[in-house]
């Protein structure tokens, strides 16, 4: 059937392409999830410092990434 279905069927075959694709997909998903959560925290009045502490990164890092939005 579709390429997607083929990929799914091979998922159990330890095909590196599937594993790598999953990692890449997770990374992109993670970026979106982080953005959603940071935005939500800011809307609820959290400081950059508080958000950074929860994410385990520096305040500067989180501010640089999301500060202008």
């Amino acid at each position, binding site marked *: 059937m*579709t*390429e*997607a*279905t083929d990929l799914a069927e091979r*998922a159990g075959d330890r095909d590196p392409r599937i*594993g790598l694709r*999953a990692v890449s997909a*997770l990374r992109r998903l993670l970026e979106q*999830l982080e953005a959603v959560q940071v935005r939500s925290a800011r809307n609820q009045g959290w400081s950059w410092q508080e958000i950074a502490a929860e994410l385990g990164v520096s305040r500067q890092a989180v501010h640089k990434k999301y500060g202008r939005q």
Partner: protein
Amino acid sequence: MFERFTKDARAVVEGAVTHSERVGARTVEEEHVLLALLDREGTRGSFALTSLGEAGFRESLERDLAEARRRGGLSRADADALSGLGIDLSEIVSRVEEAHGEGVLEPGGRGGDGRRGRRRPFGQEAKDVLVRALRVATTRRDRHIGDEHLLLAITLRGGVAAEALADHGVTYESVTRVLYGGTGVGAGGENGVAEAG
């Protein structure tokens, strides 16, 4: 690089910027390039698309793109790879939307536009389309980069746009067949696919 772009290819790049502005995205993305390609008439790229696409092609394609955007810009192949890890992407999307509102996982961030008037940057995937278009043209020994090369580049990337196109019968092979009458041999189809994503 742009000096080798034909007038049609430049029009697609400009159109992509316009599409990005229209939806208030911060960057120009691959799907904006695709939408700009679909706007064109009387070009090699649009010839391929109209030859292969059926009635209602554009609307259906736009629906597919919107659906993928809602999943955080992940393709079905991505979703399947994640399910191999036991991760149910649709479940995640529905829970996050429940808590934070419909469409919150869409990439590219809408609104918050401090960039108005400034040059809108091309996102990584859209840049990759331009680079691949150049490569496709080079491999085919075409001296200029036309909008058909942009279309071929998108089909080779294997991303959300390529998936949506493939669902409508537009693949590297079918576009090559329509445009060049061959089977796409010699254009590095295999290579391109292996590098995709």
